């Protein structure tokens, strides 16, 4: 039994380990190890396409994780206090955005937004003052952020709600009995208690957005994110450069994930 478990852990980690090992390859060929060096990291980090894609991915991940954490927390707090059809509707929306495959979300966002833009663009041209080039709405940075915010928001709502429902009610009741305003109670009691969950939600959201390929593939327009860059490079063949990029991406996600885990667990313990 133990042997079997060791085997499964090897199955899970050897492929990642092999990529990491070969990323330090000194040779020019992807699959022949010829001494160790960090030169492929240097090459990857001085490739303008990689750096551009990395910048896009980081900016998109940061903005969409921020929006998702903010809107998601607001919604989770409000949903805690209400019942009836509004709550049912939101539960259904959260369920739908988690259930529907990412690829269908990507497609729907693409053709939905293109349709809306096609309607709005002539309007903008019509109302824009003469002599100035009117802006045209198109798929790109903003649509990518909007699409990521959608599915990350559902994630944040789920995480923050779990924490809110695990919270001791008597704390907020005590606060309002002591004549605190609802906002005062929120700021001084609720927020400190749910903050670890919000932060964990933010970190998970950031990782998801940073790693997302399928939604970005449809809605990024002419923008290239790091996963899109990696995907198109893989199509052209396996290189040590992709190994280096892959290892860095994995390392960043691992750091974020471990931090999120620690935050969630520490918060859980404090609530008990």
């Amino acid at each position: 039994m133990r042997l079997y478990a060791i085997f499964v852990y090897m199955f899970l980690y050897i492929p990642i380990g092999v990529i990491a090992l070969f990323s330090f390859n000194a040779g020019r060929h992807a699959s022949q190890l010829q001494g160790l060096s960090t030169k492929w990291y240097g090459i990857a980090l001085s490739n303008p396409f990689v750096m551009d894609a990395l910048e896009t991915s980081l900016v998109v991940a940061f903005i969409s994780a921020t929006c998702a954490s903010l809107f998601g927390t607001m919604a989770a707090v409000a949903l805690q206090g209400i019942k009836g059809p509004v709550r049912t509707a939101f539960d259904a929306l959260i369920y739908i955005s988690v259930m529907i495959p990412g690829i269908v979300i990507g497609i729907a966002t693409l053709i939905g937004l293109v349709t809306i833009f096609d309607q709005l663009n002539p309007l903008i041209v019509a109302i824009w003052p003469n002599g100035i080039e009117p802006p045209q709405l198109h798929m790109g940075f903003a649509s990518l952020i909007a699409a990521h915010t959608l599915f990350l928001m559902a994630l944040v709502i789920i995480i923050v709600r779990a924490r809110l429902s695990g919270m001791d009610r008597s704390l907020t009741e005590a606060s309002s009995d002591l004549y605190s305003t609802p906002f005062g109670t929120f700021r001084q009691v609720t927020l400190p208690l749910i903050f670890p969950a919000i932060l964990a939600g933010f970190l998970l959201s950031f990782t998801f957005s940073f790693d997302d390929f399928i939604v970005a593939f449809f809605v990024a327009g002419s923008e290239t994110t790091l996963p899109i860059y990696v995907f198109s490079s893989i199509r052209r063949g396996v290189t040590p450069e992709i190994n280096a990029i892959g290892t860095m991406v994995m390392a960043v996600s691992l750091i974020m994930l471990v931090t999120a885990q620690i935050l969630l667990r520490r918060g859980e313990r404090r609530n008990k």
Partner: protein
Amino acid sequence: MTQRTRNWLLLAPAGTWFLVMLIVPLTVVLIYSFGERATAGGYSPAFTFEQYANLPARWAAFKNTMVLAPVGTLAALLIAYPVAYFLAVRVSPKWKTILLVLVIVPFWTSILIRSYAWIFLLGGRGIPALLEWIGIEGVRLINTPFSVLIGIIYGYLPLMVFPIYVNLERLDKRLLEASSDLGAKPWRTFIQITLPMSIPGIATGCMLVFILLMGEFLIPALLGGGKVFFVGNALVDLFLQSRNWPYGSAVAVTLVVVMLITVTIYMRLIKRLGAHREDVSLM
């Protein structure tokens, strides 16, 4: 400001987002699926069932998905169960958390990079080269159903282990002791107590993996090499290459409908199994 107004204000951004980025786009897909393809690609308004009538043209993609998704789910279950059992029953509490985290962590990292790792391992200079070295020649692993299956298992194993672990962890260990005290052999305890009690965990794991597999694109795209393709690959082809939006929409709608039907039937079955278990435990 009343509590009511405050709640509305708090829900407004999320509600707007859900409306504009989820409800409107999904409705557009549904409407487009009854439309016609414009000559330059895209959509021209119509009301026709032509797109749905054409679905058999993409039968292979649906067939592959409906074969490899259940097979992949089952394979992941068979591999995951003993690991979950080991973690929940055999491992000391000190090691439990760290070992569990080690199983889950890969799932939250880039599936793109993880599938890429297998291109590297299964490709010509990876495992086949090793096999050649020990004398087995001409083995082709990449771009076969086998490589796609490996990718699926690798990608979704953590998601299967977790719910089964949670289930087995909560299982009352006294039941197992009682069973062995009453003279049952270990395998009999497993068949009659552990396995039936862990059905909810198995059900959750299978459903999570199956749902995600139905919409899979990356694993077959990277490890199937155009020979083993899922509905997801057909969708990318229809929307980004041939720009046949109405037909693509019909395929997407069908995928979601098939998924909902399968999940509903599956839930019914599980409920029945669960009810059966309740009867047994009452006796």
